[in-house]
């Protein structure tokens, strides 16, 4: 398996599987490998005609479609990287992203190649950029995580070894393309002649319709955040659908609470259930296969498991010494082929999350873990002000920055609590002068200033924010309100 290029195995699949179905789009329309090959070449031609060259970036603010995938491949055929963004996010956020990585071209739905130009193929190197995924940043502006061909191919190659896909497999594409779960959804089938089934957005968020969709499309490999699976178990009447083709269910992005996972295990006794772990910066770096039977006395969530064979994962204390003792809570660090070299436009030497230990550069995930008795890593929460909701990484500071953009808000503080396994985001706001702030008004502001998944669940209007003795916002005091 080629571990140095994300695109080369796709080009091989185009030749070997030309008549097989590569993509089923949201409406059920299909494209074969041969058609995707031609369409991606047409996009490459359009990009080249618009001045895109090897080493450039192409911004793709498009909804999920066959063309969007063809555009990603088209960019890589020119040796350029693609930058997928949330097409429904406020345009100011997407414009910031495209400015930050100075895209050579924004490829939106109006970009319709006519196949009139035939670009020269470019062979990419392992250190060339494949794509940039932007994640929530604490300063209020998203940060670019550039993944090279080596980073991405190392991960996809691990997936192929682990999932052992075949050409008649159908992979769900539930996550948005700007979200790192989509890397598995897209490139594992495209490397192996399988089919990508794009999940329509309205179906994707409706746990009652998903099981029917999985059955209808004949999906064999499902991948999503646990919260969707939990809702599917609760509301989806799994026993009333024929899910017999389903072989593997992967989940990642947040902790899967044990009660719904237990019910999923019982509902799908013959299906492999894989817990994948890793921030965007590392692709997936640990994995755990849920056993056929979850022991009845267990109450803790399942481990995130052990390191994937394409990288090294360790637990370290605050002095960067390895922690081997069982149960001791320590920082989770990763290094190796799937791990990014540094954030876009930032010096790795100046990046606090990249740490040198004994001559090796490690990425500090910001997560805490502990070894269990079986030598697996247990997830023990976050160190900083980041939370995960519905699988999305959210820097609470980015929500505060979004609220601060409201003309009538003088100051805002955001914190998160957990209620019955559900992350609830709270915001306290101090109005400017005599301004009156209502919950509806605040929610509407958030809908225009932030992606929907960042909007707080609870608002309080306060005359002042509580402060600690050093003048910092007193989050402990706020939580107690």
């Amino acid at each position, binding site marked *: 398996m080629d571990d140095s290029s994300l695109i080369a195995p796709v080009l091989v699949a185009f030749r070997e599987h030309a008549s097989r179905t590569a993509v089923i789009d949201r409406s059920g329309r299909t494209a074969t490998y041969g058609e995707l090959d031609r369409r991606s070449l047409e996009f490459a031609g359009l990009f080249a005609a618009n001045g895109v060259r090897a080493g450039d970036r192409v911004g793709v603010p498009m909804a999920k479609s066959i063309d969007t995938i063809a555009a990603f491949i088209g960019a890589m055929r020119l040796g350029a990287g693609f930058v997928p963004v949330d097409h429904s996010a406020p345009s100011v956020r997407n414009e910031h992203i495209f400015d930050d990585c100075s895209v050579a071209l924004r490829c939106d739905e109006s970009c319709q190649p006519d196949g009139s130009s035939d670009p020269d193929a470019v062979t990419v190197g392992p250190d060339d950029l494949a794509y940039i995924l932007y994640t929530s940043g604490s300063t209020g502006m998203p940060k670019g995580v550039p993944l090279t061909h080596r980073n991405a191919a190392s991960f996809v190659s691990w997936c192929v070894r682990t999932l052992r896909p075949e050409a008649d497999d159908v992979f769900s594409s539930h996550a948005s393309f700007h979200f790192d779960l989509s890397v598995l959804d897209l490139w594992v089938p495209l490397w192996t002649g399988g089919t990508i089934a794009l999940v329509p957005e*309205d179906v994707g*968020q*409706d*746990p*009652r*319709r998903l099981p029917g969709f999985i059955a209808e499309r004949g999906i064999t490999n499902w991948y999503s955040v646990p919260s969707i699976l939990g*809702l599917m178990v609760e*509301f989806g009447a799994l026993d009333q659908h024929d899910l017999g083709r389903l072989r593997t269910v992967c989940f990642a992005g947040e902790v899967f609470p044990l009660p719904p996972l237990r019910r999923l295990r019982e509902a799908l006794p013959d299906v492999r259930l894989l817990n994948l772990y890793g921030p965007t910066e590392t692709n997936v770096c640990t994995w755990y296969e849920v056993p056929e039977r979850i022991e009845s006395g267990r109450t803790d969530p399942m481990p995130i498991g052990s390191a994937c064979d394409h990288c090294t994962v360790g637990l370290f204390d605050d002095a960067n010494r390895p922690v081997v003792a069982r149960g001791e809570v320590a920082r989770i660090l990763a290094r190796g082929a799937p791990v990014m070299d540094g954030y876009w436009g930032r010096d790795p030497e100046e990046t606090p999350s990249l740490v040198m230990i004994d001559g090796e550069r490690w990425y500090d995930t910001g997560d805490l873990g502990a070894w269990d008795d079986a030598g697996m890593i247990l997830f023990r929460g976050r160190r900083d002000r980041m939370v995960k909701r*519905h699988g999305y990484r959210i820097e609470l500071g980015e929500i505060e920055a979004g609220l601060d953009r409201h003309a009538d808000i003088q100051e805002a503080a955001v914190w998160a609590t957990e209620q019955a396994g559900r992350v609830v985001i709270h915001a306290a706001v101090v109005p400017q002068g005599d301004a009156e702030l*209502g*919950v*509806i008004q605040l*929610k*509407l502001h*958030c*809908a*225009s200033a932030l992606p*929907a998944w960042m*909007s707080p669940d*609870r*608002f*309080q*209007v306060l005359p002042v924010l509580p402060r600690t003795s050093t003048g910092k916002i007193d989050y402990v005091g706020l939580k107690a309100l």
Partner: protein
Amino acid sequence: MTTDDIRDKVRSFILEEILPGEQPENLKDDMPLRTSGLIDSMGTIRMTGYLESTFGISIAAHETGVENFETVDAICTFIQGKLSG
């Protein structure tokens, strides 16, 4: 159940679960809820469960779209249709 009873129950769910802290008079019955971002898909799922158990009705997945859930008025009309149908 009267029209007012239905309206009270729908409004109190939205005010208590989705918009806690908002003054009831600020929630207008013709205010867009879904397309404006006031209620997201998770909120709709929770509301569907509440409406089913409160009114003893069954709501199909395809009925939870914007056409029935965009405003308090639309939700009330939808429930009335269910109860009389």
